[in-house]
């Protein structure tokens, strides 16, 4: 560097190369961060803030009530009913999703004819609109014209058509079934992707050691799937717990409140009862519960691994 250049360098403060680089990196992630703030920070803070008010939805005007919303909820039968219903629904559909998902992933891992087509058909429920899925199932469940009732009567399993959606425990069973059908392909994709990375020679070695197909499944396949299943179960549990569209469209929460889960309660509070504050309180309680669940899940998971 010449003297003149060096002198110029000193008078004009310039950013170091590494700083400039870091700034560019920050710039690239800025839109994402901005949007994240809109998604996480803002709604979280808002929800907590709103839950301390009593707000009339159409006008969005409210008054401070402090923790009254929470007190009322925790004392209300409807809240705990919704909580219990949510748990039943989540556990029921999750178990089915995982069992069906793993089973079908194993099936699709084999060399069957038209395997690509089979895969597409199996994966499709996940990618179709919930609206469409629910409409289709309502048609299938229909008490007069639904094919399910007719098929079961034809097979001799029953003599009268069932009301699948309007009565209990049928409504819960229907919801769980449809939920399982809609979301099990997520398990299939994740497990299948993992299955495809298990080296063949592990199975070959086991076969030479005398293991049959069940032995190979429990000793080789299952341990390899452990990690994937850990994450898949967590994700599905959270997403199933939060599920709104499917239950709302299938039963609307009915009969009465028999299938009203927490998300449905939030919607009802906000838009049917016009109580925005109360709805936010339910949402915050939901979040706290899921956070607690996630923390426990990770602790348990780490403990069993070691």
């Amino acid at each position: 560097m010449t003297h003149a250049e060096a002198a110029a360098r000193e008078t004009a403060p310039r950013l170091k190369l590494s700083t400039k680089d870091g700034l560019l990196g920050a710039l690239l992630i800025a839109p994402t961060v901005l949007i994240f703030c809109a998604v996480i920070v803002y709604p979280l803070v808002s929800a907590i803030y709103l839950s301390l008010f009593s707000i009339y939805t159409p006008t969005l005007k409210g008054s401070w009530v402090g923790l009254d919303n929470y007190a009322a909820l925790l004392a209300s039968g409807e809240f705990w009913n919704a909580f219990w219903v949510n748990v039943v629904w989540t556990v029921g559909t999750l178990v089915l999703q995982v069992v069906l998902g793993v089973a079908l992933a194993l099936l699709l891992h084999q060399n069957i004819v038209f395997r690509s087509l089979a895969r597409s058909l199996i994966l499709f429920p996940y990618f179709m609109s919930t609206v469409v899925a629910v409409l289709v199932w309502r048609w299938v469940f229909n008490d007069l014209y639904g094919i399910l009732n007719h098929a079961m009567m034809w097979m001799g399993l029953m003599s009268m058509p069932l009301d699948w959606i309007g009565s209990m425990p049928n409504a819960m069973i229907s919801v769980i079934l449809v939920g399982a059908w809609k979301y099990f392909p997520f398990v299939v994709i994740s497990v299948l992707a993992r299955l495809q990375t298990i080296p063949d020679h592990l199975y070959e070695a086991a076969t030479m050691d005398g293991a049959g197909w069940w032995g190979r499944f429990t000793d080789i396949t299952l341990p390899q799937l452990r990690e994937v299943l850990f994450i898949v179960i967590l994700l599905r549990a959270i997403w199933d717990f939060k599920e709104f569209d499917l239950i709302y469209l299938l039963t609307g929460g009915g009969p009465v409140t028999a299938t009203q889960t927490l998300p449905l309660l939030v919607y009802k509070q906000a838009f049917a009862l016009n109580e925005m504050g109360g709805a936010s309180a339910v949402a915050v309680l939901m979040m706290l519960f899921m956070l607690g669940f996630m923390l426990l899940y990770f602790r348990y998971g780490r403990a069993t691994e070691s």
Partner: protein
Amino acid sequence: MRRFGLSRILFNLLAWAIVLVVSFPLLWTIVTSLKPQTELFLIPPSLLPGEVTFEHYRKLLLETRFLTYFSNSVVVSVATTVLVVAVAVLGAHSLVRFAYPGRERLAQLVLFTYLLPSVVLIIPLYLLLVRMGIANTLLSLVVAYTTFALPFAVWLLRSFMAGIPQDLEAAAMVDGASRMGAFFDVILPQALPGIISTAVFTFILAWNEYLFALVLVNQDSSRTLTTGVITMLVTSFHIEWSMLMAASVMMSVPVIVVFAFLQKHLTRGFGAGAVKG
């Protein structure tokens, strides 16, 4: 696994029986949509249409606002996809290739956002959109969908882009490219499979979305397919099953097309993302 013969055939039959049972509702939808109105309510229902008719499709396309809803959905889904992919690819590149304070924490925060139930987001988001003056418009849906599609897109693209060799970018920079020049010349082309997977997921996410569309848009002309179809064909008293089935088939067509085209990419996408956690 290489034994031909009876057990093989039986296995294939069993496998396909299961596949058909699982996909039955879909096939049934198509069948129902092709049945004439009179045949629809037969007891017991007929397994195959006695007479194939496209009258429900015709009615839907010509006599209802179906096409309006359809074009709205297309606009919203495409706009969301473009926006999300653009923002996510830049963000993922930043997370993978740059160094600045707080980077690691941001990366972890990404999936954390999915803990929030959409019902929580919807209330503040609605208020925000009202304040922005865009409530009840397609734009509000694009904004809303971008917010919840973005975390997953960033997560997915991050796994993909982490797999691109570092040397490529370094070579481009030594060869004379600026940081962003190297990004466009070398990184983007390499990230294309990941970008396609992300675009597909985002498109399908936006196309199928219901709750936000329900709450944020009340004007019928701005409705998307999901809410539009329900409003139009489903009331507390009467459900137009035949047109509903036809609508269901047509709503699923873009998904099927996109899906069939890129089925291979989808499995790879989940493999890269899910397995790496």
